[in-house]
């Protein structure tokens, strides 16, 4: 529990970013500038190499944590889920298949899935929060969209989201950052299921072109 980490200062060791207790700093810094060895690192992790794991962690710490925050908002929750994600990376690295996508996408996709799992497992709490939002007259999409707007640091992603049609934009944001299923998105938007499915797909393809994502 991060709460524990934060509140037990007496026994917590100073492991800020300036202090690198594990591995060699210089190589870690170099490695994070070129992502190309992530697949090799994952392979080494699958073989039980803790040093490779530490280097992979240093490369992907921010995208993993950012993904968790994007879905969960709360940094403490996000840190808990991120920790679970990393343990899962350690345990399941042998399932990574380079033919199915990049190592980076594999890890970040796992992070998103676990963050969404967490959102759904605390759905009851969220529903209560949602009622408060509803009563205050705000629309859930706007809330999510506003939060997302302030969270995104990559201007390009923000700008590209703006190139989507309104329905595409809403569907993608509610599903990805809201952790909603496409059925819930359809309910929220008052749209038909096939419409939502195709808007999500079309929206992602438009984002792909806008961002110049290589598959």
């Amino acid at each position, binding site marked *: 529990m991060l709460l524990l980490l934060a509140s037990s200062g007496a026994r*917590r060791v100073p492991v800020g970013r300036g202090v690198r207790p594990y591995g060699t700093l210089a190589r870690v810094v170099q490695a994070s500038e070129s992502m190309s060895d992530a697949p090799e690192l994952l392979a080494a992790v699958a073989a039980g190499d803790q040093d490779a794991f530490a280097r992979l962690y240093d490369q992907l710490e921010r995208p993993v944590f950012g993904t968790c925050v994007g879905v969960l908002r709360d940094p403490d929750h996000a840190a808990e889920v991120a920790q679970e994600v990393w343990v899962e990376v350690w345990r399941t690295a042998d399932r990574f298949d380079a033919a199915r996508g990049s190592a980076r996408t594999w890890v970040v996709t796992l992070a998103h899935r676990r963050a969404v799992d967490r959102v759904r497992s605390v759905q009851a709490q969220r529903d209560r929060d949602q009622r408060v939002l509803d009563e205050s007259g705000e629309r859930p999409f706007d809330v999510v969209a506003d939060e997302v707007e302030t969270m995104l640091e990559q201007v390009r992603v923000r700008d590209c989201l703006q190139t989507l049609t309104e329905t595409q934009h809403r569907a993608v944001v509610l599903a990805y950052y809201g952790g909603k299923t496409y059925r819930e998105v359809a309910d929220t938007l008052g749209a038909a299921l096939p419409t939502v499915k195709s808007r999500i797909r079309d929206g992602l393809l438009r*984002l792909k072109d806008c961002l110049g994502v290589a598959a």
Partner: protein
Amino acid sequence: MSENDETRSLLGAYALDAVDDLERQAVERLVASDDEAADELRSLQAVAARLGESVRAEPPAALRASVLGAIAAEAAGQSRTPRHAAEPATDQPGASSTEARPTSDEQVSRPAPVTHRPRGAQRWWSLAAAVVVGAAVPSAIAIQQHQRAEHATTQQQALADVLRDPSAVLAHGEVQGGGSATAVLTDDDALFSATGLPSLSDGKVYQLWVVSKEAAASAGVLSADGGSVRQLAGDFSSGDALAMTVEPAGGSQQPTTTPLVILSAS
């Protein structure tokens, strides 16, 4: 619309984790057999990943140590069914060569400055290769460890109990001469484990010590099983450290050699 077309229409929602379990399985079956669908999913997932990566967030400083500590504990727990190649053994830990240490100096370990050591024990500790300090155990990990241990041995149960203690701190470090050690330290128990230890010559044993500010007390002679040891030190208090030395067979009343590893909570 065929069933495959129906499933294909879910690829976008799948890439955003916006499907239910049955739909997820259907998509996974489709992409396993349909290269075109697999290609499309690959690019949709790459786009989706960008949405998460672009979130501005600074990971908490303690997360890294916490994650690496958990992985070290996982690795130690897997020692009975090793993922690693068998490690070469040497007669004397102190005399082992680099070849005997497949986990080289890049290994996850943390030499701490002298000021981190509890006062009073410094003279004896000062010769040790490294003092390793720990990080708190996140409860999520403690619970996972507990669940994994439920069907396991008594010692693993002890591990689970120790991990569930809210005061639990993980420490991990290399053992001088070969192998690595992990300990879970709480306010009143400590569980020590080490793997990849070189076998000792006849007449020598590994011995564990609970080191307080004033003294070292034996926590028992360790029986090495294929280079792995595990020991619960019940007589442990907050602020104490664990140390492992090589002693004459039967063990010693007080440590007679330099510790090969020292694990401390703070």
